[in-house]
């Protein structure tokens, strides 16, 4: 069953240089209990997507200009801010790359956790709430949880802080957890701990996860299905195996080729994508990837490609995907 359905989501920002259309008709659906990865390079709109879902776009500069976000049968874009507050942290929770930015530095970890719980469970007794917090910290792998509750965020290591964030996000057992680059700032050994923890918690709690990262290897590790974004648009979407076995979009292929592999031949030339992501003011018309694409033809800079079906749930937004697939075989 679909728990979250993002459809035609467009977001614009007012900037000093003018209005920028940061998201252009972004679609994806997430099923109950699944992990959906969103991947793309910095600036492609991953965080803006998650902020839009959470109703946390910076106001008044940012706004949704089109589309819908259906959660539990309702378009949450139409909710009042009070209604949205009751969904945030309860129905949909979020964790960030830098937990320090989300934690209050002068408040003990325990109080912050209690507050997240009691915002949505005001009926629960203090003792019960406290016990629940201790249990939650234990659950996210924090040793000596009673003691940790009395500590301040700065007394914790990066990995421990991310665990506290996860505990806060999950304490009300949300249906959807949005994890925006939750391991990007961590060392690989700690990243491995956190990824393992998220998988375990997902098994226990059954929530759906939107896992946002720029790292395709992490996507391969954790996702059931994947949306690839480029410059504010979805360029490809597929279950994880077809995406890695048979990527169709030249951008997805380029990204996969750029990753140096441990098993690869050292000192060989890595595949690159020429040039760089254009700014929103120099964005090519038609396909936004066309000015960096070695396969681009005249029509690519004229028409905006729509997501075409490659196979059941594998879609690609490239006008030339059929030609390119033929050449490949």
């Amino acid at each position, binding site marked *: 069953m679909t728990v979250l359905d993002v459809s035609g989501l467009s977001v614009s920002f007012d900037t000093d240089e003018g209005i920028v259309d940061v998201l252009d008709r972004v679609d994806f659906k997430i099923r109950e209990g699944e992990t959906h990865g969103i991947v793309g*390079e*910095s600036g492609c709109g991953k965080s803006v997507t998650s902020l839009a879902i959470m109703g946390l776009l910076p106001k008044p500069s940012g706004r949704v200009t089109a589309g819908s976000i259906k959660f539990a049968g309702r378009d949450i874009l139409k909710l009042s801010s009070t209604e949205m507050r009751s969904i945030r942290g309860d129905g949909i929770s979020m964790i960030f790359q830098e937990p320090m930015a989300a934690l209050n530095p002068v408040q003990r970890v325990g109080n912050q956790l209690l507050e997240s719980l009691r915002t949505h469970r005001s009926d629960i007794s203090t003792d019960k709430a406290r016990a629940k917090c201790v249990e939650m910290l234990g659950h996210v792998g924090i040793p000596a949880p009673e003691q940790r509750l009395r500590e301040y965020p700065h007394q914790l*290591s990066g*990995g*421990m802080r991310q665990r506290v964030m996860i505990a806060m996000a999950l304490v009300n057992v949300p249906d959807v957890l949005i994890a925006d680059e939750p391991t990007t700032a961590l*060392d*690989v*050994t*700690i*990243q*491995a*701990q956190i*990824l*393992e923890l998220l998988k375990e918690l997902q098994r226990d709690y059954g929530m759906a996860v939107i896992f946002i990262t*720029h*790292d*395709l*290897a*992490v*996507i*391969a*590790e954790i*996702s059931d299905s994947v949306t690839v974004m480029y410059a504010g648009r979805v360029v490809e979407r597929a279950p*994880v*195996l077809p995406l*890695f076995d048979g990527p169709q979009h030249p951008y997805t292929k*380029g*990204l*996969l*080729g*750029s*990753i*140096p*592999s*441990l*098993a*690869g031949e*050292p*000192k060989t*030339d*890595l*595949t*690159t*994508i020429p040039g*760089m992501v254009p700014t929103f003011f120099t964005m090519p018309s038609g396909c936004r990837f066309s000015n960096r694409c070695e396969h681009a033809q005249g029509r690519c800079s004229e028409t905006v490609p729509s997501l075409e079906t490659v196979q059941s749930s594998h879609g690609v937004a490239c006008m030339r995907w059929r030609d390119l697939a033929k050449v490949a075989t």
Partner: protein
Amino acid sequence: MHALARLGEGRDLTMRSFPLLEVERLTKHFPVRAGVIPRTVGRVHAVDDVSFTLRRGETIGLVGESGCGKSTVGKTLLRLYDATSGTVKFEGKDVSEMNRAQVRELRKHIQIIFQDPFESLNARHTIGKILAEPFVIQKMGTAAERAQWVGELLNRVGLDVSASNRFPHEFSGGQRQRIGIARAIALSPKLIVCDEAVSALDVSVQSQVVNLLLSLQQEMSLALMFIAHDLAVVKHVSDRIAVMYLGEIVEMRDGEDIYRSPRHPYTKALISAIPVADPRNKSQRTILEGDVPSPINPPSGCRFHTRCQFATPKCSKYRPELEELPDGGLVKCLRWNEIN
């Protein structure tokens, strides 16, 4: 071949007998001060007893988790830090005995590039001025010649000459790193320390910069010390890799050997933790528990024993020394033979 590099080769002939760089038992401790009247209450063991040599044109990779001492090693090579003990010899000369003029000369031969090369540069200067500066400092060329060299440098790193009239903030991360590289190669150095130089870049741009570094290395027979926390990138560019943990080198091997048959339990865990861009390969991970202990009071004996699944009581008692492996690599583990 780069004309300046060819000149460099000739100059080196007398030095051939020395390795480019010899680092012996290098140790760097930072004092920890506290109190109203600050006094030293402890020492951060940033680097302890690190030894390696680097040949001309060779690349050594330095990997390990943040805080393990990688940057400190890099900075000590250029005398940006003075060693607490141990020696760094560049072309046979002990850098700690160099006077000011000699240190200035040293920094012509050894360059360092950081994650954001502009952090240490003047944001109000044009790229042209920033790139001409090394020549000005070394009193090389006329203004016209320097402008021409700047143009050549920009071309060499894949940027348009027009970049020279623009300011740092006008460039993307990848372009800034190209400019950082252009500045680093200006004086035809023999060694560049790349300290997380590609770590902040998106993969598609990272691969461009890695390719650029590798081709410059070929052309100029540059030696590289490539510092990064991403083992895959390090392995791609390095001949040998040194794995650091809490200030020490725990394993040093050829890149291929270390990846195919890691010997130190920490190296094994590090490799196993790296996600692979292959969803069929969700391998059984060895997940290290807990965090890296504090470098102020590092664990006794083997520093890794508190997180090592193979640790026995002797591991907390005796400090292992680097031992030579049959393949010529080095490993610092009391039990490497039993556990492999």
